[in-house]
Protein backbone atom coordinates (compact mmCIF):
# COMPACT_ATOMS: atom_id res chain seq x y z
CA UNK A 1 0.00 0.00 0.00
CA UNK A 2 1.20 3.50 -0.74
CA UNK A 3 -0.05 7.06 -0.24
CA UNK A 4 0.16 10.10 -2.49
CA UNK A 5 -0.16 13.83 -1.81
CA UNK A 6 -3.93 13.65 -2.48
CA UNK A 7 -4.39 11.19 0.42
CA UNK A 8 -2.27 13.33 2.69
CA UNK A 9 -4.15 16.49 1.74
CA UNK A 10 -7.43 14.76 2.65
CA UNK A 11 -6.05 13.38 5.92
CA UNK A 12 -4.52 16.70 6.95
CA UNK A 13 -7.87 18.40 6.38
CA UNK A 14 -9.60 15.81 8.60
CA UNK A 15 -6.90 16.20 11.24
CA UNK A 16 -7.10 20.00 11.00
CA UNK A 17 -3.41 20.23 10.13
CA UNK A 18 -2.29 22.97 7.75
CA UNK A 19 0.73 21.66 5.79
CA UNK A 20 2.92 23.87 3.65
CA UNK A 21 3.69 22.56 0.12
CA UNK A 22 7.20 21.51 1.20
CA UNK A 23 5.86 19.76 4.25
CA UNK A 24 3.24 17.99 2.20
CA UNK A 25 5.91 16.45 -0.04
CA UNK A 26 8.02 15.51 2.95
CA UNK A 27 5.16 14.01 4.99
CA UNK A 28 3.95 12.04 1.97
CA UNK A 29 7.39 10.54 1.41
CA UNK A 30 7.82 9.76 5.12
CA UNK A 31 4.43 8.16 5.52
CA UNK A 32 4.88 6.17 2.36
CA UNK A 33 8.03 4.61 3.83
CA UNK A 34 6.38 4.03 7.22
CA UNK A 35 3.45 2.29 5.59
CA UNK A 36 5.78 0.10 3.56
CA UNK A 37 7.40 -0.98 6.81
CA UNK A 38 4.05 -1.72 8.44
CA UNK A 39 3.04 -3.65 5.32
CA UNK A 40 5.43 -6.38 6.48
CA UNK A 41 2.73 -7.29 9.03
CA UNK A 42 0.40 -8.22 6.21
CA UNK A 43 2.63 -11.19 5.47
CA UNK A 44 1.71 -12.84 8.77
CA UNK A 45 -0.93 -15.54 8.37
CA UNK A 46 -3.94 -14.39 10.44
CA UNK A 47 -6.48 -16.91 9.16
CA UNK A 48 -8.64 -18.06 12.04
CA UNK A 49 -7.39 -15.35 14.40
CA UNK A 50 -10.22 -13.22 15.81
CA UNK A 51 -9.62 -9.46 15.58
CA UNK A 52 -8.63 -8.01 18.93
CA UNK A 53 -10.22 -4.76 20.07
CA UNK A 54 -7.67 -4.27 22.82
CA UNK A 55 -4.20 -5.69 23.45
CA UNK A 56 -5.02 -6.62 27.04
CA UNK A 57 -6.74 -9.92 27.62
CA UNK A 58 -9.21 -8.41 30.08
CA UNK A 59 -12.79 -7.21 30.18
CA UNK A 60 -14.22 -3.84 31.10
CA UNK A 61 -15.04 -3.27 34.76
CA UNK A 62 -18.02 -1.10 35.42
CA UNK A 63 -18.99 1.40 38.08
CA UNK A 64 -22.34 1.68 39.84
CA UNK A 65 -24.66 4.44 38.61
CA UNK A 66 -24.05 7.09 41.26
CA UNK A 67 -23.28 10.80 41.13
CA UNK A 68 -19.81 11.04 42.62
CA UNK A 69 -18.48 14.23 41.02
CA UNK A 70 -18.95 17.64 42.56
CA UNK A 71 -18.21 20.13 39.81
CA UNK A 72 -16.43 23.30 40.85
CA UNK A 73 -17.12 25.29 37.72
CA UNK A 74 -15.13 28.38 38.68
CA UNK A 75 -12.10 26.21 39.35
CA UNK A 76 -12.30 24.53 35.93
CA UNK A 77 -13.05 27.76 34.12
CA UNK A 78 -10.00 29.39 35.67
CA UNK A 79 -7.84 27.95 32.89
CA UNK A 80 -10.30 28.66 30.05
CA UNK A 81 -9.30 31.50 27.70
CA UNK A 82 -12.82 32.94 27.64
CA UNK A 83 -16.04 32.32 29.57
CA UNK A 84 -19.34 34.14 29.97
CA UNK A 85 -22.54 33.35 31.89
CA UNK A 86 -21.01 30.02 32.90
CA UNK A 87 -20.35 29.06 29.28
CA UNK A 88 -17.00 28.23 27.73
CA UNK A 89 -16.51 30.59 24.77
CA UNK A 90 -14.93 29.27 21.59
CA UNK A 91 -14.35 30.74 18.13
CA UNK A 92 -17.71 30.94 16.42
CA UNK A 93 -18.92 27.65 14.95
CA UNK A 94 -21.74 27.90 12.48
CA UNK A 95 -23.79 24.84 11.59
Amino acid at each position, binding site marked *: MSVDTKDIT*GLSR*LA*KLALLPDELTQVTADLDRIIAMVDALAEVDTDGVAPL*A*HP*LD*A*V*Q*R*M*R*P*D*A*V*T*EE*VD*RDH*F*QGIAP*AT*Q*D*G*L*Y*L*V*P*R*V*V*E
Partner: protein
Amino acid sequence: MSERSGWETVIGLEVHVQLATRSKIFSGASTAFGAAPNTQASPVDLALPGTLPVLNEEAVRMAIRFGLATGAEINRESVFDRKNYFYPDLPKGYQISQFSQPIVGKGHLDVQLDDGQTLRVGITRAHLEEDAGKSLHEDYSGMTGIDLNRAGTPLLEVVSEPDLRSSAQAAAYFRQMHALVRYLGICDGNLNEGSMRCDANVSVRPQGTTELGQRTEIKNLNSFRFLQQAIDAEVARQIEVLESGGRIVQETLLYEPELNRTRSMRSKEDSTDYRYFPEPDLLPVVVDDALIEAIRATLPELPHEKRERYQAELGLGAYDAAWLTSEPEVAAYFEAAAENSGEAKLAANWVMGELSGALNKAELDITRSPVSATRLAALIRRIKDGTLSSKTAKQLFEALWQEPAAQDEAAEAAATCIDQRIEALGLKQMSDSGELARMVDEVVAANPAQVEQFRAGKDKVLGFFVGQIMKQTQGKANPQQVNELLRAALSGKPD
Protein backbone atom coordinates in the same frame (compact mmCIF):
# COMPACT_ATOMS: atom_id res chain seq x y z
CA MET B 1 -49.33 15.66 2.06
CA SER B 2 -50.42 12.39 0.54
CA GLU B 3 -48.17 10.20 -1.56
CA ARG B 4 -47.91 11.06 -5.20
CA SER B 5 -48.81 8.27 -7.49
CA GLY B 6 -46.03 6.37 -9.17
CA TRP B 7 -43.56 6.71 -6.30
CA GLU B 8 -42.85 4.67 -3.22
CA THR B 9 -41.29 6.21 -0.13
CA VAL B 10 -38.66 4.26 1.82
CA ILE B 11 -37.73 5.40 5.33
CA GLY B 12 -35.37 4.17 8.01
CA LEU B 13 -35.07 5.91 11.38
CA GLU B 14 -32.24 6.38 13.84
CA VAL B 15 -33.69 7.14 17.24
CA HIS B 16 -31.43 8.52 19.97
CA VAL B 17 -32.78 7.51 23.35
CA GLN B 18 -31.32 9.38 26.31
CA LEU B 19 -30.95 6.77 29.05
CA ALA B 20 -32.37 7.71 32.43
CA THR B 21 -29.27 7.05 34.49
CA ARG B 22 -28.40 9.31 37.41
CA SER B 23 -24.82 9.79 36.31
CA LYS B 24 -23.10 10.00 32.95
CA ILE B 25 -21.99 7.06 30.88
CA PHE B 26 -18.25 7.56 31.53
CA SER B 27 -18.12 9.93 34.51
CA GLY B 28 -19.73 10.40 37.90
CA ALA B 29 -21.28 13.78 37.00
CA SER B 30 -25.05 14.21 37.28
CA THR B 31 -27.29 13.97 34.20
CA ALA B 32 -30.15 16.03 35.72
CA PHE B 33 -31.78 18.36 33.21
CA GLY B 34 -31.81 22.12 33.64
CA ALA B 35 -28.75 22.74 35.82
CA ALA B 36 -26.77 25.98 35.43
CA PRO B 37 -24.32 25.76 32.49
CA ASN B 38 -21.26 23.56 33.02
CA THR B 39 -22.06 22.76 36.64
CA GLN B 40 -22.38 19.10 35.61
CA ALA B 41 -19.29 19.00 33.41
CA SER B 42 -16.61 17.00 35.23
CA PRO B 43 -12.94 16.63 34.20
CA VAL B 44 -13.82 13.55 32.10
CA ASP B 45 -16.61 15.45 30.31
CA LEU B 46 -14.29 18.39 29.78
CA ALA B 47 -11.65 16.05 28.31
CA LEU B 48 -8.98 17.32 30.68
CA PRO B 49 -5.65 15.57 30.15
CA GLY B 50 -5.05 12.48 32.24
CA THR B 51 -8.70 11.58 32.70
CA LEU B 52 -10.10 8.20 31.70
CA PRO B 53 -13.64 6.97 31.08
CA VAL B 54 -15.23 4.43 33.46
CA LEU B 55 -18.33 2.69 32.14
CA ASN B 56 -21.67 3.10 33.95
CA GLU B 57 -23.12 -0.35 34.63
CA GLU B 58 -26.71 0.91 34.54
CA ALA B 59 -26.36 2.19 30.96
CA VAL B 60 -25.33 -1.31 29.90
CA ARG B 61 -28.26 -2.88 31.77
CA MET B 62 -30.70 -0.45 30.16
CA ALA B 63 -29.37 -1.27 26.69
CA ILE B 64 -29.84 -4.97 27.42
CA ARG B 65 -33.37 -4.28 28.70
CA PHE B 66 -34.19 -2.59 25.41
CA GLY B 67 -32.65 -5.42 23.42
CA LEU B 68 -34.67 -8.07 25.25
CA ALA B 69 -37.90 -6.09 24.78
CA THR B 70 -37.33 -5.93 21.02
CA GLY B 71 -36.48 -9.61 20.63
CA ALA B 72 -32.91 -8.71 19.76
CA GLU B 73 -29.67 -10.61 20.00
CA ILE B 74 -27.59 -9.35 22.91
CA ASN B 75 -23.94 -9.44 21.97
CA ARG B 76 -22.02 -11.19 24.75
CA GLU B 77 -19.02 -9.11 23.81
CA SER B 78 -19.28 -5.54 22.55
CA VAL B 79 -16.66 -2.93 21.85
CA PHE B 80 -16.48 0.85 22.15
CA ASP B 81 -14.97 2.85 19.30
CA ARG B 82 -13.83 6.40 18.74
CA LYS B 83 -15.80 8.38 16.19
CA ASN B 84 -13.57 11.29 15.30
CA TYR B 85 -14.89 14.75 14.73
CA PHE B 86 -13.72 18.17 15.73
CA TYR B 87 -16.47 20.17 17.31
CA PRO B 88 -16.34 22.05 20.59
CA ASP B 89 -19.49 20.36 21.90
CA LEU B 90 -17.30 17.27 22.50
CA PRO B 91 -13.93 18.59 23.55
CA LYS B 92 -12.10 15.24 23.28
CA GLY B 93 -12.24 15.58 19.48
CA TYR B 94 -14.12 12.29 19.27
CA GLN B 95 -17.28 10.68 20.49
CA ILE B 96 -17.11 7.33 22.24
CA SER B 97 -19.60 5.14 20.42
CA GLN B 98 -19.95 1.55 19.25
CA PHE B 99 -19.33 0.72 15.63
CA SER B 100 -18.56 -2.83 14.53
CA GLN B 101 -19.67 -4.65 17.68
CA PRO B 102 -22.72 -2.92 19.22
CA ILE B 103 -24.28 -4.31 22.39
CA VAL B 104 -27.70 -4.94 20.78
CA GLY B 105 -28.00 -6.74 17.45
CA LYS B 106 -30.96 -7.47 15.18
CA GLY B 107 -34.43 -7.14 16.68
CA HIS B 108 -37.82 -5.77 15.79
CA LEU B 109 -40.67 -3.53 16.94
CA ASP B 110 -44.34 -4.25 16.24
CA VAL B 111 -46.04 -0.98 15.38
CA GLN B 112 -49.79 -0.51 15.37
CA LEU B 113 -50.91 1.63 12.45
CA ASP B 114 -53.96 3.89 12.28
CA ASP B 115 -55.93 1.30 10.33
CA GLY B 116 -55.47 -1.21 13.16
CA GLN B 117 -52.91 -3.27 11.23
CA THR B 118 -49.62 -4.22 12.85
CA LEU B 119 -46.37 -3.52 11.03
CA ARG B 120 -43.22 -5.34 12.09
CA VAL B 121 -40.27 -2.98 11.71
CA GLY B 122 -36.80 -4.49 11.76
CA ILE B 123 -34.22 -3.04 14.12
CA THR B 124 -30.74 -3.34 12.65
CA ARG B 125 -28.86 -2.62 15.87
CA ALA B 126 -28.78 -0.48 18.98
CA HIS B 127 -25.54 0.84 20.38
CA LEU B 128 -24.35 2.84 23.37
CA GLU B 129 -22.68 6.20 22.96
CA GLU B 130 -22.19 9.52 24.73
CA ASP B 131 -24.22 12.63 23.96
CA ALA B 132 -22.52 15.91 23.00
CA GLY B 133 -22.81 19.25 24.78
CA LYS B 134 -24.80 22.23 23.53
CA SER B 135 -23.54 25.10 21.39
CA LEU B 136 -25.23 28.44 21.87
CA HIS B 137 -24.91 30.67 18.84
CA GLU B 138 -26.33 33.84 20.35
CA ASP B 139 -23.87 36.63 20.22
CA TYR B 140 -21.15 36.20 22.81
CA SER B 141 -18.97 38.94 21.34
CA GLY B 142 -18.81 37.00 18.08
CA MET B 143 -18.02 33.73 19.82
CA THR B 144 -19.98 30.54 20.48
CA GLY B 145 -20.97 29.57 24.03
CA ILE B 146 -20.50 25.94 25.05
CA ASP B 147 -22.45 24.16 27.78
CA LEU B 148 -21.06 20.69 28.45
CA ASN B 149 -23.68 19.55 30.97
CA ARG B 150 -25.18 17.19 28.40
CA ALA B 151 -21.79 15.92 27.19
CA GLY B 152 -21.41 12.32 28.31
CA THR B 153 -25.10 11.66 28.91
CA PRO B 154 -25.71 8.05 27.87
CA LEU B 155 -27.54 7.50 24.60
CA LEU B 156 -28.86 4.35 23.03
CA GLU B 157 -28.96 4.84 19.29
CA VAL B 158 -31.56 2.57 17.72
CA VAL B 159 -31.19 2.04 13.99
CA SER B 160 -34.15 0.66 12.07
CA GLU B 161 -34.23 -1.21 8.78
CA PRO B 162 -35.65 0.76 5.83
CA ASP B 163 -39.03 -0.90 6.49
CA LEU B 164 -41.20 2.20 6.74
CA ARG B 165 -43.22 3.25 3.68
CA SER B 166 -44.83 6.54 4.70
CA SER B 167 -44.38 9.47 7.05
CA ALA B 168 -47.39 8.22 9.03
CA GLN B 169 -45.71 4.84 9.53
CA ALA B 170 -42.51 6.60 10.61
CA ALA B 171 -44.42 8.67 13.18
CA ALA B 172 -46.22 5.54 14.43
CA TYR B 173 -42.87 3.78 14.85
CA PHE B 174 -41.40 6.74 16.75
CA ARG B 175 -44.50 6.82 18.99
CA GLN B 176 -44.26 3.10 19.64
CA MET B 177 -40.57 3.46 20.50
CA HIS B 178 -41.47 6.30 22.85
CA ALA B 179 -44.06 4.14 24.63
CA LEU B 180 -41.66 1.21 24.84
CA VAL B 181 -38.74 3.07 26.44
CA ARG B 182 -41.10 4.65 28.96
CA TYR B 183 -42.55 1.24 29.90
CA LEU B 184 -39.03 -0.10 30.27
CA GLY B 185 -38.13 2.84 32.50
CA ILE B 186 -34.96 3.48 30.52
CA CYS B 187 -35.87 6.99 29.29
CA ASP B 188 -38.12 9.75 30.60
CA GLY B 189 -39.44 10.27 27.06
CA ASN B 190 -39.48 14.03 27.46
CA LEU B 191 -39.32 15.24 23.87
CA ASN B 192 -39.23 18.93 24.81
CA GLU B 193 -36.03 18.36 26.74
CA GLY B 194 -34.50 16.37 23.88
CA SER B 195 -34.69 13.01 25.68
CA MET B 196 -35.57 11.38 22.36
CA ARG B 197 -34.35 12.66 18.99
CA CYS B 198 -34.65 11.12 15.62
CA ASP B 199 -32.81 11.18 12.28
CA ALA B 200 -34.75 10.06 9.21
CA ASN B 201 -33.16 8.43 6.16
CA VAL B 202 -35.50 9.09 3.26
CA SER B 203 -35.53 7.95 -0.35
CA VAL B 204 -38.11 7.40 -3.08
CA ARG B 205 -38.25 4.89 -5.92
CA PRO B 206 -40.64 4.17 -8.76
CA GLN B 207 -43.56 2.08 -7.51
CA GLY B 208 -43.01 -1.60 -8.18
CA THR B 209 -39.21 -1.45 -8.22
CA THR B 210 -37.05 -3.01 -5.53
CA GLU B 211 -33.77 -1.14 -5.83
CA LEU B 212 -33.35 1.60 -3.20
CA GLY B 213 -33.18 5.19 -4.42
CA GLN B 214 -30.45 7.60 -3.32
CA ARG B 215 -31.24 8.66 0.25
CA THR B 216 -30.84 11.83 2.23
CA GLU B 217 -30.74 12.15 6.00
CA ILE B 218 -32.88 14.63 7.96
CA LYS B 219 -31.22 15.33 11.31
CA ASN B 220 -32.47 16.05 14.77
CA LEU B 221 -36.25 15.77 14.71
CA ASN B 222 -37.68 15.91 18.20
CA SER B 223 -41.44 15.69 17.80
CA PHE B 224 -43.82 13.23 16.16
CA ARG B 225 -45.39 16.04 14.16
CA PHE B 226 -42.11 17.50 12.88
CA LEU B 227 -40.90 14.03 11.92
CA GLN B 228 -43.97 13.50 9.78
CA GLN B 229 -43.90 17.00 8.27
CA ALA B 230 -40.18 16.85 7.52
CA ILE B 231 -40.51 13.52 5.72
CA ASP B 232 -43.48 14.78 3.69
CA ALA B 233 -41.55 17.89 2.67
CA GLU B 234 -38.45 15.88 1.76
CA VAL B 235 -40.40 13.26 -0.22
CA ALA B 236 -42.12 16.03 -2.18
CA ARG B 237 -38.75 17.66 -2.88
CA GLN B 238 -37.15 14.42 -4.04
CA ILE B 239 -40.05 13.57 -6.36
CA GLU B 240 -39.95 17.04 -7.82
CA VAL B 241 -36.20 16.78 -8.49
CA LEU B 242 -36.56 13.34 -10.07
CA GLU B 243 -39.62 14.23 -12.16
CA SER B 244 -37.86 17.26 -13.57
CA GLY B 245 -35.00 15.03 -14.69
CA GLY B 246 -32.67 15.77 -11.77
CA ARG B 247 -30.71 13.49 -9.50
CA ILE B 248 -30.78 13.17 -5.69
CA VAL B 249 -27.51 13.98 -3.97
CA GLN B 250 -26.62 12.22 -0.73
CA GLU B 251 -26.64 14.93 1.90
CA THR B 252 -27.53 15.79 5.47
CA LEU B 253 -30.56 18.03 5.90
CA LEU B 254 -32.20 20.12 8.56
CA TYR B 255 -35.95 20.63 8.69
CA GLU B 256 -37.20 24.22 8.99
CA PRO B 257 -40.71 24.01 10.44
CA GLU B 258 -41.59 27.65 9.86
CA LEU B 259 -40.93 27.26 6.11
CA ASN B 260 -41.95 23.57 5.99
CA ARG B 261 -38.91 22.62 3.96
CA THR B 262 -35.62 20.79 4.32
CA ARG B 263 -32.32 22.58 3.90
CA SER B 264 -28.85 21.24 3.27
CA MET B 265 -26.64 21.08 6.37
CA ARG B 266 -23.44 19.81 4.83
CA SER B 267 -22.91 18.55 1.34
CA LYS B 268 -21.21 15.37 0.16
CA GLU B 269 -18.04 17.26 -0.82
CA ASP B 270 -16.87 17.77 2.74
CA SER B 271 -18.79 14.85 4.20
CA THR B 272 -17.06 13.73 7.35
CA ASP B 273 -14.84 10.71 7.53
CA TYR B 274 -15.22 9.56 11.12
CA ARG B 275 -12.21 7.23 11.04
CA TYR B 276 -13.63 4.84 13.63
CA PHE B 277 -11.17 2.77 15.60
CA PRO B 278 -11.43 0.77 18.84
CA GLU B 279 -11.38 3.02 21.91
CA PRO B 280 -8.07 2.17 23.61
CA ASP B 281 -9.27 3.59 26.95
CA LEU B 282 -12.03 1.01 27.31
CA LEU B 283 -11.84 -2.76 27.30
CA PRO B 284 -14.41 -4.98 25.60
CA VAL B 285 -17.70 -5.21 27.50
CA VAL B 286 -18.63 -8.78 28.33
CA VAL B 287 -22.09 -9.74 29.60
CA ASP B 288 -23.02 -13.24 30.68
CA ASP B 289 -26.24 -15.23 30.50
CA ALA B 290 -26.89 -14.81 34.21
CA LEU B 291 -27.04 -11.03 33.85
CA ILE B 292 -29.21 -11.23 30.76
CA GLU B 293 -31.65 -13.63 32.40
CA ALA B 294 -31.78 -11.52 35.57
CA ILE B 295 -32.73 -8.51 33.46
CA ARG B 296 -35.25 -10.52 31.44
CA ALA B 297 -36.99 -11.50 34.68
CA THR B 298 -37.66 -7.83 35.48
CA LEU B 299 -39.26 -6.89 32.14
CA PRO B 300 -42.75 -5.43 32.60
CA GLU B 301 -45.76 -6.26 30.44
CA LEU B 302 -44.89 -4.40 27.23
CA PRO B 303 -47.18 -1.97 25.39
CA HIS B 304 -48.02 -4.36 22.55
CA GLU B 305 -48.71 -7.17 25.02
CA LYS B 306 -51.04 -4.90 27.00
CA ARG B 307 -52.74 -3.78 23.80
CA GLU B 308 -53.43 -7.36 22.80
CA ARG B 309 -54.66 -8.27 26.28
CA TYR B 310 -57.03 -5.28 26.44
CA GLN B 311 -58.59 -6.44 23.19
CA ALA B 312 -58.67 -10.16 23.87
CA GLU B 313 -59.56 -10.17 27.58
CA LEU B 314 -61.28 -6.86 28.21
CA GLY B 315 -63.09 -6.64 24.90
CA LEU B 316 -61.81 -3.18 23.99
CA GLY B 317 -61.49 -2.00 20.39
CA ALA B 318 -58.11 -1.60 18.71
CA TYR B 319 -58.20 2.20 18.92
CA ASP B 320 -59.12 2.27 22.61
CA ALA B 321 -56.49 -0.35 23.44
CA ALA B 322 -53.78 1.63 21.63
CA TRP B 323 -54.86 4.89 23.26
CA LEU B 324 -54.86 3.47 26.78
CA THR B 325 -51.48 1.77 26.45
CA SER B 326 -49.55 4.66 24.91
CA GLU B 327 -48.27 5.73 28.32
CA PRO B 328 -47.58 3.41 31.25
CA GLU B 329 -49.19 5.82 33.74
CA VAL B 330 -52.43 5.96 31.75
CA ALA B 331 -52.50 2.16 31.48
CA ALA B 332 -51.92 1.81 35.23
CA TYR B 333 -54.76 4.24 35.99
CA PHE B 334 -57.11 2.51 33.56
CA GLU B 335 -56.30 -0.92 34.94
CA ALA B 336 -56.98 0.22 38.51
CA ALA B 337 -60.29 1.80 37.45
CA ALA B 338 -61.30 -1.25 35.39
CA GLU B 339 -60.37 -3.73 38.07
CA ASN B 340 -62.03 -1.88 40.94
CA SER B 341 -65.22 -1.24 38.98
CA GLY B 342 -65.40 -4.56 37.15
CA GLU B 343 -66.47 -2.55 34.08
CA ALA B 344 -63.55 -2.30 31.65
CA LYS B 345 -65.46 -0.70 28.79
CA LEU B 346 -67.13 1.92 30.95
CA ALA B 347 -63.79 2.63 32.63
CA ALA B 348 -62.15 3.03 29.20
CA ASN B 349 -64.85 5.49 28.13
CA TRP B 350 -64.45 7.55 31.27
CA VAL B 351 -60.65 7.62 31.15
CA MET B 352 -60.57 8.56 27.46
CA GLY B 353 -63.50 10.95 27.69
CA GLU B 354 -64.36 12.90 30.83
CA LEU B 355 -61.06 12.33 32.67
CA SER B 356 -58.72 13.00 29.76
CA GLY B 357 -60.71 16.11 28.81
CA ALA B 358 -60.52 17.49 32.34
CA LEU B 359 -56.80 16.67 32.63
CA ASN B 360 -56.04 18.40 29.32
CA LYS B 361 -57.99 21.45 30.34
CA ALA B 362 -56.15 21.68 33.65
CA GLU B 363 -52.84 20.71 31.98
CA LEU B 364 -52.36 17.92 34.47
CA ASP B 365 -50.57 14.61 34.22
CA ILE B 366 -52.76 11.57 34.99
CA THR B 367 -50.53 10.77 37.97
CA ARG B 368 -51.77 14.04 39.49
CA SER B 369 -55.44 13.52 38.68
CA PRO B 370 -57.65 14.99 41.41
CA VAL B 371 -60.03 12.07 40.82
CA SER B 372 -58.19 8.91 41.78
CA ALA B 373 -58.66 5.63 39.91
CA THR B 374 -60.42 4.06 42.91
CA ARG B 375 -62.89 6.95 43.10
CA LEU B 376 -63.60 6.74 39.38
CA ALA B 377 -64.14 3.00 39.85
CA ALA B 378 -66.61 3.60 42.70
CA LEU B 379 -68.44 6.16 40.55
CA ILE B 380 -68.65 3.69 37.67
CA ARG B 381 -70.09 1.03 39.97
CA ARG B 382 -72.84 3.46 40.93
CA ILE B 383 -73.63 4.08 37.27
CA LYS B 384 -73.81 0.37 36.68
CA ASP B 385 -76.22 -0.28 39.56
CA GLY B 386 -78.51 2.53 38.44
CA THR B 387 -77.83 4.91 41.34
CA LEU B 388 -76.30 7.49 38.98
CA SER B 389 -77.42 8.47 35.50
CA SER B 390 -74.78 9.53 32.99
CA LYS B 391 -75.76 13.12 33.72
CA THR B 392 -75.56 12.91 37.53
CA ALA B 393 -72.34 10.90 37.20
CA LYS B 394 -70.80 13.85 35.37
CA GLN B 395 -72.03 16.22 38.08
CA LEU B 396 -70.44 14.00 40.70
CA PHE B 397 -67.21 13.82 38.69
CA GLU B 398 -67.02 17.60 38.59
CA ALA B 399 -67.58 17.78 42.34
CA LEU B 400 -64.86 15.18 42.96
CA TRP B 401 -62.49 17.13 40.70
CA GLN B 402 -62.73 20.05 43.14
CA GLU B 403 -61.67 17.96 46.14
CA PRO B 404 -58.54 16.01 45.18
CA ALA B 405 -58.12 12.55 46.63
CA ALA B 406 -54.87 10.84 47.47
CA GLN B 407 -53.73 8.73 44.52
CA ASP B 408 -53.36 5.70 46.73
CA GLU B 409 -56.75 6.03 48.41
CA ALA B 410 -58.03 2.55 49.23
CA ALA B 411 -61.03 1.19 47.34
CA GLU B 412 -63.28 1.08 50.44
CA ALA B 413 -62.50 4.66 51.39
CA ALA B 414 -63.17 5.76 47.83
CA ALA B 415 -66.50 3.89 47.74
CA THR B 416 -67.57 5.46 51.02
CA CYS B 417 -66.60 8.89 49.75
CA ILE B 418 -68.61 8.39 46.53
CA ASP B 419 -71.74 7.32 48.40
CA GLN B 420 -71.46 10.24 50.81
CA ARG B 421 -71.14 12.70 47.91
CA ILE B 422 -74.11 11.16 46.11
CA GLU B 423 -76.15 11.61 49.26
CA ALA B 424 -74.89 15.12 50.03
CA LEU B 425 -75.38 16.40 46.49
CA GLY B 426 -78.74 14.67 46.14
CA LEU B 427 -77.67 12.94 42.96
CA LYS B 428 -79.36 9.62 43.58
CA GLN B 429 -81.33 8.60 40.55
CA MET B 430 -85.06 8.51 41.18
CA SER B 431 -86.43 5.09 40.51
CA ASP B 432 -89.39 5.08 42.84
CA SER B 433 -91.87 4.01 40.20
CA GLY B 434 -94.94 5.20 42.15
CA GLU B 435 -93.60 8.75 42.39
CA LEU B 436 -92.49 8.74 38.75
CA ALA B 437 -95.80 7.34 37.54
CA ARG B 438 -97.64 10.17 39.32
CA MET B 439 -95.43 12.76 37.59
CA VAL B 440 -95.92 11.08 34.23
CA ASP B 441 -99.69 11.14 34.64
CA GLU B 442 -99.56 14.84 35.54
CA VAL B 443 -97.43 15.74 32.56
CA VAL B 444 -99.60 13.74 30.19
CA ALA B 445 -102.77 15.37 31.58
CA ALA B 446 -101.28 18.87 31.33
CA ASN B 447 -100.30 18.58 27.65
CA PRO B 448 -103.24 17.22 25.66
CA ALA B 449 -102.07 18.74 22.36
CA GLN B 450 -98.77 16.86 22.49
CA VAL B 451 -100.59 13.69 23.50
CA GLU B 452 -102.70 14.04 20.35
CA GLN B 453 -99.59 14.49 18.22
CA PHE B 454 -97.98 11.40 19.71
CA ARG B 455 -101.06 9.32 19.16
CA ALA B 456 -101.22 10.58 15.59
CA GLY B 457 -97.84 8.91 15.05
CA LYS B 458 -95.44 11.72 15.82
CA ASP B 459 -93.04 9.63 17.86
CA LYS B 460 -90.60 12.48 18.35
CA VAL B 461 -92.98 14.15 20.81
CA LEU B 462 -91.88 11.56 23.33
CA GLY B 463 -88.71 13.60 23.76
CA PHE B 464 -90.78 16.56 24.89
CA PHE B 465 -92.37 14.50 27.65
CA VAL B 466 -89.04 13.00 28.76
CA GLY B 467 -87.67 16.54 28.92
CA GLN B 468 -90.54 17.65 31.15
CA ILE B 469 -89.96 14.81 33.61
CA MET B 470 -86.21 15.36 33.68
CA LYS B 471 -86.79 19.02 34.37
CA GLN B 472 -89.05 18.25 37.29
CA THR B 473 -86.64 15.69 38.72
CA GLN B 474 -83.55 17.78 37.99
CA GLY B 475 -82.21 14.98 35.83
CA LYS B 476 -82.39 12.38 38.55
CA ALA B 477 -85.03 10.15 37.00
CA ASN B 478 -83.91 6.90 35.44
CA PRO B 479 -84.33 7.66 31.72
CA GLN B 480 -85.17 4.11 30.77
CA GLN B 481 -87.87 3.92 33.38
CA VAL B 482 -89.29 7.31 32.34
CA ASN B 483 -89.45 6.13 28.75
CA GLU B 484 -91.33 2.98 29.67
CA LEU B 485 -93.81 4.81 31.89
CA LEU B 486 -94.42 7.51 29.28
CA ARG B 487 -95.00 5.06 26.47
CA ALA B 488 -97.45 3.17 28.61
CA ALA B 489 -99.29 6.35 29.64
CA LEU B 490 -99.39 7.84 26.13
CA SER B 491 -100.60 4.71 24.43
CA GLY B 492 -103.46 4.78 26.90
CA LYS B 493 -102.73 1.38 28.34
CA PRO B 494 -102.77 0.94 32.09
CA ASP B 495 -99.30 0.59 33.60
